[in-house]
């Protein structure tokens, strides 16, 4: 089964917000990022990546002033296969992100009602991989 492994929050002040969640829940900072899409932090609870980001483009059509939950990410065995499946179900491909991105290649989709999510084969930094039996079954 695919696994939810990434939650991204849109923040005006990622530095302050990341500090809050580190102090509140002992989440660990695993990466600081400043790429073409966003500036911010990736925290981990050991299983899930919590990204706290100031976005540089309006990916969800709510304006660059939007703050709040932004998108989630799902770890899958095979991105290409899932991408085909998502398109068959009416998901709309938004963009691919990869190259030198740490943590692996991902594909962004809009699902029903324009909700944005990522699918990736490579675990986000600091997150749990897929359970072994799932990976073995896919190999």
């Amino acid at each position, binding site marked *: 089964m695919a696994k939810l492994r990434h939650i991204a929050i849109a923040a005006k002040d990622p530095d302050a917000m990341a500090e809050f969640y580190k102090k509140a829940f002992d989440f660990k900072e695993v990466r600081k990022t400043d790429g073409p899409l966003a500036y911010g932090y990736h925290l981990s609870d050991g299983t899930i990546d919590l990204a706290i980001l100031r976005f540089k483009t309006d990916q969800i059509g709510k304006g660059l002033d939007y*703050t709040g939950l932004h998108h989630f990410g799902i770890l899958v065995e095979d991105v290409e296969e899932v991408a085909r499946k998502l398109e068959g179900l009416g998901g709309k491909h938004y963009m691919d992100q990869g190259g030198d991105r740490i943590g692996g290649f991902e594909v962004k989709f809009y699902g029903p009602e324009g909700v944005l999510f990522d699918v990736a084969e490579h675990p986000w930094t600091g997150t749990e991989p897929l359970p072994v039996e799932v990976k073995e079954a896919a190999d």
Partner: protein
Amino acid sequence: MPKLRHIAIAAEDPEAMAEFYKKAFDFVEVGRPNGVLADGVFLSDGTLNMAILKFKTDQLGKGMDFRGIHHFGVLVEDVEEFSKKLESLGAEHYIDQGQGGHQAGYFEKKFYGPERVLFDIAEHGWAGAEPLPASIKEAAE
């Protein structure tokens, strides 16, 4: 360490949205919440509860027609202890929710963190969510 175990999406049509995620990722339906705050469908990936909800009140101050990811939930060892900690860090307590119904024993507190981002904390977890690792729970007992 506390664990992220819940993500809630605000939907106009939770039924259709839940069908999409069930078909797309084999997420399993684990409940049909019907409460004062929202109706919808609970899905699980075996670790997290993914709630797809039609909200009945404007919890975020973004209007009733807000669609998108709404809040998340963190499973903690001790809700009271974490409530005190969160308030000392500047979080604002919003509401308590829980007990009885389809999910007896369930209790959560909702907080606004920095920039009014809403999140829940709970001790007993959401339907279909994995409990805290045994070592953490034992250490807390």
